[in-house]
């Protein structure tokens, strides 16, 4: 199985630790990933701004960069959704390579649970607040959302739920948007900031010690507010939590990942 890692541009530049944690988590499951060096950006900022002509070369660049792999795995639901759900008008409809690459591009938790069937053990004794990033939630359906009356498991909660000592925060609004929204964060700065503040207040009332999500973009925005207000909440991508739990377990027992279990 040839697996490529797609690290979104802003994660590459600002959150290298999340990329490294993703590599560690995948390696712990026996997957050795390639990181194609030519990769840049999936084109989402341009597409979300309505600039399809500017997004098109990036979509085609993405397809050609990842054409030779069985899976493309990325620690970002938002970028994965861009590739899977919004490349329709950007790449050639009759190009079978493009269709394959799009279909095989998976968000990290999807790959870990649905493809590998991994479960993790280890210790993470913190009250953890899950921020359900919207694109993972409502575009990729990685969890059940409060609007739709169909039951779905939360892949993220299932992955983290196996860790010893972890508790999950009970939020008043379990899946409201954090207000990041890409360029929305700047073009509608006032509403965006208020939405972020409201999410943080919800996590404060729930006693969140560690705030996690499947998308660093939401966390970048929420972390910006947390640091501005000097609040005692640690922000971690879920890959970082798994990597940290693995590191602690590695000291005690070598086998910490069960494959094909769930």
């Amino acid at each position, binding site marked *: 199985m040839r697996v490529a890692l797609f690290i979104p541009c802003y994660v590459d530049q600002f959150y290298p630790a999340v*990329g490294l944690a993703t590599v560690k988590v995948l390696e712990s499951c026996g997957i050795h990933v390639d990181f194609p060096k030519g990769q840049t950006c999936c084109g989402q900022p341009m597409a979300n701004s309505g600039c399809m002509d500017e997004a098109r070369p*990036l979509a085609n660049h993405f397809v050609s960069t990842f054409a030779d792999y069985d899976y493309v795995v990325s620690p970002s639901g938002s970028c994965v959704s861009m590739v899977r759900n919004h490349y329709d008008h950007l790449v050639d409809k009759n190009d079978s390579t493009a269709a394959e690459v799009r279909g095989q591009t998976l968000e990290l938790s999807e790959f870990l649970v649905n493809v590998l069937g991994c479960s993790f053990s280890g210790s993470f004794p913190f009250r953890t607040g899950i921020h359900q990033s919207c*694109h993972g939630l409502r575009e990729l359906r990685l969890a059940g959302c409060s609007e739709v009356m169909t039951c779905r498991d939360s892949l993220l909660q299932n992955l983290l739920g196996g860790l010893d000592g972890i508790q999950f925060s009970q939020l008043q609004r379990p899946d409201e948007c954090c207000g*990041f929204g890409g360029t929305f964060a700047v073009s509608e700065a006032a509403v965006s900031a208020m939405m972020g503040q409201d999410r943080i207040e919800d996590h404060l009332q729930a006693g969140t010690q560690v705030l996690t999500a499947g998308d660093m973009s939401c966390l970048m925005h929420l*972390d910006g507010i947390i640091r501005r207000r000097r609040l005692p909440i640690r922000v971690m991508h879920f890959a970082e939590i798994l990597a940290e739990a693995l590191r602690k377990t590695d000291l005690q027992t070598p086998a910490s990942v069960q494959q094909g279990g769930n």
Partner: protein
Amino acid sequence: MGHPALAEEFTANTERAHWHDRALWFVRQKRDRMAASVPEWEELRATASAIKQHTQSLLADYLEEFERNATAHGAVVHWAADAEEHNRIVLSILQQHQVQNLVKSKSMLTEECHLNPWLEQHGIHVVDTDLGERIVQLREEPPSHIVLPAIHIRKEEVGECFHEHLGTEAGASDPEYLTEAARQHLRECFCNADAGLTGVNFAIAETGGIVICTNEGNADLGVGVPRVHIACMGMEKLIPRAEDLSVFLRLLARSATGQPVTTYSSHFHGPQQGGELHIVIVDNGRSEILQSEFRRSLDCIRCGACMNTCPVYRRSGGHSYESTVPGPIGSILTPLRTPEEHNTLPFACSLCGSCSDVCPVRIPLHHQLFALREHLDAKNLLERGKKLQMKVLSAVFSRPWLYRLAGRFARKALRWTPRFITYSSLTPAGLWGKARELPEAPPQSFRELYRNRQQQVDSEQNHPGDV
């Protein structure tokens, strides 16, 4: 002014913005409870969506069938190509009957056509009889929500308004007292009316009947006393069969206000004895939307659920949209008609997708908002700065070497530039930084660290003894 500026104004009063957010979230939660109580909820949504898409695909046929059947009941069907024609038709009917006092139940279509000011210009006294609509009418402002027109107004403010216009006690804010005062006032209006005007929730092709849903019974009162009933409807309100109502009536009130059903669902088949029923069917841009990729926005049954759930609407208020229909659905319908004036609306959205998931007829609202942005670009209506920025970014991202270089430069710049410059309000970073810290720029990117790591792994494999 555009949505961002008006939204900023609204959020500046944090306490009020939070109050507004909570009031609408309360309605959204009621909707959730109601939806959860119907086991086949998602099936209902899928069925409603299928019926609407089917109807829109054969709309011309169904409209003609409706006209035939409504006419057979004795109704007079009028066709209006646009708002102006609609207003002229309504005025001429009223003038024929020398109407001086008109009572109206809620109709977003007549808001869209700006009917009230037109009629008042021609000497007709118009009273909106929905309580919320009456409040905003007395305050001389537009509704801020399609189902809850006065949701932005607090009871104390209603008290002040009623004190001034209806003579209630100064300082009174008890909802029951104020509602009773409105009731007495509106009774008088109903009794003195010469004609009643209503909207239409559903028009049934098969029977030629129309259905009007209200919670206050004001549509029934408004058309019960006067002899002339005018019902105004957008041409997309058609459904094929009477039995289709069983799908829509179950969805409408649950989605709108979290009630199992609207208090009054009134069916009209032709005029009352000795009276007249005029049905005005309005296009006003709908045919054009029907032929575009945005056709599914015409499936809307005006429940307002997308507004109640929209995190942006709840925090920016309906008036920030400067549009008869605000919120997600309004941000599609209005810029399609007037893209120049409303080019900020498709961007008043974080693309969270909550609206699409509450929509009872499953309009892919956030995907349409996404597509509408491209539509604005094609019309050259994107903000110029944004377009330029995206052109530059695209050029950088298209060249991996340039991206690596730019990334290194940006991180260095962020690390070494003094805070007062980075956070100055003149830069995009400063706009971000008004309420938030920027991310801390690490000395090395992921790809640099990864390369080092791989080299280390390789050298360990080649020289297992070395450290």
